């Protein structure tokens, strides 16, 4: 198993292609997303993650449905989310949906939690935006309880109490999915991830590297503070944002109209300014390799790298070409280069298999002669 995971994450936006004026139908976009995921598997990427949105112009409102369908048509791709809304989804339903997904995929999945960035979603699901942070903390504590405890008795502020509740199905092999906590800018999330010893994923792509650097440093420090290991052993993921052509000027010329009208950053800074200020890289595969390798300089050795390749109305054909370049030219070099100089005590990216092995190991340590002695003397 590779030390680092490489993959893609999608927002699932329906954006007009500014070069043709064409906007995909929701049906076409959903089918295109499946094609993109299958291609990611085919070219040897490790992870596909989908966003969750509940309003147009986005299509992924039911991530586990999409991921299960993709899982059935892929071989080794790990399915994840970017992100699952821990604020507005019922944590019990999250546990159920992802438990079923975990069984269906034989553990080839994990989950990335986030608060969401769309204010109006909260009231649609009966929640209060102003309580976003306490909701996040309470909901995640409940999700952990439902996954980690056989019988749950629970009472909180934002949900009906649970008495004698048992999750069905229980997690595969008794090991719940690995959890990442994701943030674009909220440093509070570093504290949450560190407290539980979970992974921290910095969105990275819409913000300057300096901000990501601060957040990751803080997460690592707090991870050690809560005694989950050394700062270097914390589990870090990063977003990335690339557009490639063999010739870098072709990449710039082709991507510019998409950049200029893209949601989130369009109509603002120029492509050149944005590539200087954020990790966006538009150019040759070699430039993408160099830029991506430089991420390690400011976050340390990390576990997961996801790229955004399918937004802003880029046609499916172009996205599939991006995946070819990633799979053939970029990721093999990144795997090799990131492995060089990586200290032995930096953990590999967690998988179901590694978590099962770790749990068995911990169980063995618990059954040491020390406890046997006690039993004998008793």
């Amino acid at each position, binding site marked *: 198993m590779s030390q680092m995971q490489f993959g893609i994450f999608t927002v699932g936006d329906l954006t007009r292609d500014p070069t043709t004026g064409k906007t995909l139908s929701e049906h076409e976009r959903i089918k295109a997303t499946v094609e993109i995921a299958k291609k990611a598997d085919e070219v040897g990427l490790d992870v596909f993650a989908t966003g969750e949105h509940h309003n147009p112009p986005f299509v992924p409102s039911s991530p586990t449905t999409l991921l299960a369908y993709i899982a059935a048509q892929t071989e080794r791709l790990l399915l994840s989310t970017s992100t699952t809304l821990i604020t507005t989804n019922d944590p019990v339903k999250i546990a159920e949906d992802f438990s079923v997904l975990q069984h269906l995929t034989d553990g080839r999945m994990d989950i990335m939690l986030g608060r969401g960035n769309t204010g109006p979603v909260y009231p649609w699901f009966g929640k209060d935006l102003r309580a976003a*942070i*306490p909701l996040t*903390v309470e909901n995640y*504590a409940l999700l952990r309880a439902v996954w980690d405890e056989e019988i749950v008795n629970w009472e909180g502020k934002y949900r009906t109490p649970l008495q004698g509740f048992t999750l069905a199905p229980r997690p595969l092999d008794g090991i719940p999915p690995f959890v990442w906590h994701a943030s674009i*800018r*909220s*440093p*509070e999330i570093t*504290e*949450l991830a560190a*407290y539980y010893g979970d992974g921290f994923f910095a969105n990275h792509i*819409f*913000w*300057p590297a*300096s*901000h990501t650097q601060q957040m990751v440093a803080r997460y690592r420090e707090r991870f050690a503070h809560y005694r989950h290991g050394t700062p270097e052993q914390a589990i870090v993921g990063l977003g990335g944002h690339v557009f490639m052509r063999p010739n870098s000027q072709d990449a710039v010329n082709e991507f510019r109209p998409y950049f200029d009208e893209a949601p*989130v*950053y369009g*109509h*603002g*800074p120029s492509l050149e*300014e*944005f590539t*200087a*200020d*954020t990790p966006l890289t538009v150019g040759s595969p070699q430039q993408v390799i160099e830029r991506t390798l430089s991420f390690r300089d400011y976050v340390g050795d990390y576990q997961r790298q996801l790229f955004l390749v399918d937004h802003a109305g880029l046609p499916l054909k172009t996205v599939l070409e991006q995946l070819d370049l990633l799979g053939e030219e970029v990721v093999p070099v990144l795997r090799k280069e990131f492995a060089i100089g990586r200290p032995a005590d930096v953990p590999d990216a967690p998988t179901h298999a590694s978590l099962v092995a770790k749990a068995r190991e911990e169980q063995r340590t618990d059954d040491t002669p020390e406890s046997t002695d006690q039993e004998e003397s008793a």
Partner: protein
Amino acid sequence: MTTIAVVTGGLREPSSTRLLADRLAGAVRDHLPGQDVQMPVIELRHVGRAVVDAMLTGFPSAELEQVFDTVASADGLIAVTPAFNASFSGLFKSFFDVLPEPSLQDMPVLIAATGGTERHSLVLEHALRPMFSYLHAVVSPIAVYAATDDFAGAGAGSLDQRIDRAAAAFVRLLSACGPRERPQEYAAELGEMERLLGGLK
């Protein structure tokens, strides 16, 4: 060392708003004799595009971030805007809209404005003062409004006096507040998160 940042929203070069800012800065310096006073001047025109980009993308460019650092780490602020359409200029407001929220917390601020006629002088009281109060700054009680006549006509002498009075009041406030510690960004949010997680066990 005392650092007083000067933010000026004038659009022309040279501008009467910058002129007023310089005269206020000079008067403040006169009231701090023998002290090491740094007064970095921020012309908003020079960061106009960066301010709009920050509004659109949600983050400041590296250049604008430096300007934010200058403001947030200052001991005091002199803020001067032209009066446009019965309020501060849009650029002036936009700058403070994208400045990270705790930057001005507990900061003594001297406010001033320029305009074509003195009829707009209350812009200081109904636009600038409430905005800075909202940002948890400590706004100096005496503000200065300068109309065209103040720079040339009969009002010129009286403007000198008003600037001097405002500077004296601002310096009193500055001394009373003492050296300022820059507020930690996100300190409140992180404290809240630690408290919430602490409550779980």
